[in-house]
């Protein structure tokens, strides 16, 4: 699988997209906000998508390689395989061994890490600008000739088991979430956790991991984003040199999983070693890029995010039953979830809290949010968008996410426009459509001491 000979690089499409965005500010008289983010995007003949961004603020480069593979591509019995493979990507390939990899990065002033999600897996490094060629050599090595040695898997399984204990077993919030997700995404691979179940972690063997690697770790399944103090032409030449001759993979067709529609109200109560209870309410909602996901995000903001949100004012400030509230539209590639989260006081009464939440939801379903609430949410989105472009790494991350989710990084900017176009009527409509009190999962985390008490 290591590249053979050099094939001439050809671009399927080479284009430069310079984006200059003029935000119309909240106040019509205010001057326009001007953000300039020049991005050059092209695709190699083997299907590798490349995004280049020049940002010479500091003499470093943020190098991101994201693959379109995540826990969604697993099956029962090998849950967590995508994440396990992510770990194994650091355990050595043909040219650079495990110990070499860490040592060489370190000696060259490079920091690195990786992550796995439901839909994709990302690897990233921050390097001095003169180390671009080195990092491509390292990334190419593990993309084309990963070793996957059984003895490495043995110790790395222990590491991942510790990671799971740390994230889940020893973290009751995560345990509760895991139980709720199994119901919310019933029928779909999203129902299991990205890190996988402990039994599967203990049982991993090399063949399914190798199978995963060979199926999904191909240039045509990857997005490369290089943001930083680069010379665009030189970067292109290096990409050509290190990636152009890598063969395409045949990415298997995905079975069409569908989330089973929730038709009832389910309640989970988890009693654990905690002092402070909490509540998580989940509704099924649309996936990424769905037009309704934008008003749902506005809805989440108005409903529970920040001290000026409705639930915070009612539950934290007025009633003093809670210490914090939050809500989110969580959009995955093939499904979504609208969640409301409340951190409670130990003295709060379940019924009171739930009724208060439902009163707010009733209002959101039947009355328009105010113009002020809408504008506020839109300002918050705009601010966090701008804040999110502050560093080389955050730019690379935002672009990689947008590109891998939508196939076009420009959605990063057009999405902003979509938030600005949401109306109060849209918000009411999505509240009516998705926040159905008879189709939701209500999950409580409670102190062990209350296990014997009635609710």
């Amino acid at each position, binding site marked *: 699988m290591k590249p053979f000979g050099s094939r001439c690089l050809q671009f399927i499409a080479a284009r430069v997209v310079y984006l200059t965005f003029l935000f119309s*500010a*909240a106040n019509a008289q*205010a*001057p326009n*906000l*001007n*953000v300039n983010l020049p991005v050059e995007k092209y695709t190699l003949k083997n299907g590798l998508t490349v995004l280049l961004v020049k940002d010479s*603020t*500091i*003499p*470093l480069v943020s190098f991101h390689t994201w693959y379109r593979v995540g826990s969604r591509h697993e099956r029962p019995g090998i849950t967590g395989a995508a994440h396990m493979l992510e770990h194994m990507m650091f355990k050595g390939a043909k040219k650079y061994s*495990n110990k070499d990899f*860490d*040592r060489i*990065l*370190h*000696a*060259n*002033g*490079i*920091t*690195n890490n990786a992550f796995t999600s439901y839909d994709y897996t990302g690897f990233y490094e921050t390097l001095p600008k*003169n180390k671009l060629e080195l990092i491509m050599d390292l990334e190419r090595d593990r993309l084309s000739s990963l070793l996957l040695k059984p003895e490495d898997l043995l*110790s790395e*399984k*222990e*590491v991942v*088991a*510790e990671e799971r*204990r*740390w994230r889940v*077993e*020893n973290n*009751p919030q995560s345990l509760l979430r895991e139980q709720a997700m199994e119901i919310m995404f019933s029928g779909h691979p999203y129902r299991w956790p990205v890190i996988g179940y402990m039994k599967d972690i203990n049982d991993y063997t090399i063949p399914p991991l190798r199978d995963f690697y060979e199926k999904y770790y191909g240039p045509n399944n990857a997005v490369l984003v290089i943001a930083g103090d680069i010379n665009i032409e030189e970067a292109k030449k290096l990409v050509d040199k290190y990636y152009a001759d890598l063969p395409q993979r045949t990415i298997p067709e995905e079975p069409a999983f569908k989330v089973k529609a929730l038709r009832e109200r389910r309640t989970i109560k988890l009693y*654990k070693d*905690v*002092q*402070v209870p909490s509540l998580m309410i989940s509704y099924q909602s649309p996936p990424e890029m769905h037009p309704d996901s934008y008003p749902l995000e506005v809805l989440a903001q108005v409903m529970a995010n*920040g*001290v*000026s949100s409705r639930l915070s004012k009612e539950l934290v*400030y007025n009633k*003093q039953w809670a*210490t914090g509230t939050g809500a989110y539209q969580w959009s995955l590639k093939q499904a979504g979830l609208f969640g409301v989260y409340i*951190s409670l*006081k*130990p003295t709060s009464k379940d019924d009171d809290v739930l009724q208060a939440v439902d009163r707010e939801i009733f209002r959101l379903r039947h009355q328009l949010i105010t113009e*002020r609430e809408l504008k*506020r949410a839109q*300002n918050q*989105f705009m*601010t*966090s968008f*701008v*804040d999110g*472009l*502050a*560093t*080389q790494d955050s730019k690379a991350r935002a672009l990689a996410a947008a590109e891998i989710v939508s196939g076009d990084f420009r959605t990063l900017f057009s999405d902003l426009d979509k938030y600005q176009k949401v109306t109060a009527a849209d918000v009411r409509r999505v509240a009516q459509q998705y926040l159905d009190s008879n189709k939701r999962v209500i999950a409580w985390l409670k102190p*062990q001491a209350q296990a014997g008490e009635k609710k």
Partner: protein
Amino acid sequence: MKKILLSILVLVAAVSCSTFDKTISRVGDSNKTLRKHRVETLPNGLKIFFIEDPSLPRLSLQLLMPVGTVSEPQERAGLNAMTVALLDQGTQKKKALEIADLFADSGSEFESAAGADFTVLSTSSLTTEFRKVLDLFVEVLLSPEFPLQEIERTRQQVLVQLKGRQDRSGPWADLLMAKNYFQNHPYGRDTYGTPESVQKMNREEIIQFFKKNYIPNGARLALTGRLTPEIETEVRQKFGQWKAGDSNLAQSPEFKHPQKGGVLKLPSPHKAQTEIRFIQRGVSRNHPDFLKLRIANEILGGSFASRLNQRVRDDLGLTYSIYSGLDPKKDTGSWIISTFSKNPTAQQTVDEVFNVLKKILQEGVSAEELKAAKNLAQAQFPRSIETADRLAYNMMALDFYGVPLDYFEKFSQMIDAITLDQVNKTIKEYLKPDQMQVLVYGQQ
């Protein structure tokens, strides 16, 4: 909205990481890397850092107050955090929710992080909203009302938060470690105090604490972002109204580091994993040995390639995370190792950490390890000054700690100057496994 500033982490990065790519900027052309900045002191004693970043349409304010748990009387532990939490809960003209709404209208929020040595108050917004946000920030800072009902409300919130501390094993273990090591010194305290001390605070004490400590002389303010002369003038004017006070503030009590090591085992029967901490003497941020210790720490446990990580995680699979780090404070500091392991291998993990410590003490570090650590420190340094906000935070913090501000320009040189002999001597002088306090928190 209260949240811990991300920039706290940045300081750690700034201090642990390091300088400029050699091909680009050395001392002579530091302007190329360091953003344009100016420092002024107002007549009331407030030091203002103006730092430009025209790249994005935003502006931000960060105010570093030399006030922290060290400023509180022992029996009123948490008084500073309580005071800070109440700042945006009502002013002479506005009520709590009105303030919350106005910040939110501008897509902004009032943020605060009360710490041991200092406290940071901050806000930011798009340029178009900044005047409103600036007005609010100054109002909250200069005329908080501390209404009784808000004090009660906040007190109840804090009590629940203190109760919930142990729900998260890692942060709880950090607190237990600090408490066990620093005992009654303010560095051993939860920033929010104890349920007993929080119960006792009254409005008069809070107001007195605020009046005495929240004064411009000795404070540092940073205005960063897309600056204009008008905005700068407005900031000078608004903060110029702040009345100076008696700058004779409470000093941190002296701390004597324990000479004897020990293991504290705190059983917690329901834990699926054991949290493990090691702590010993470190140095203050402006100590001459600080950077040498940084480099030594880098080799010991500062990265994936470090000795601790390579041995305990990579070879033995005992943990998902292990690192060591310096926690420098104003007058002293500590050196910490943090990890966790499943309950049955907790003791083995402790033993293996000690083995790594013994080995590094016996053999010292190699020239190759030193070179790598220095490279990493120098190469990654620019990240800590990448944004105007990070640069501002780090400048203010270092200035507070008494580190000369040419640090940013001289960093690379200072790292270059560190020799193998110095690092090995530093390790021998400071690393004291037999003086370490170990905390083991989990099923036993």
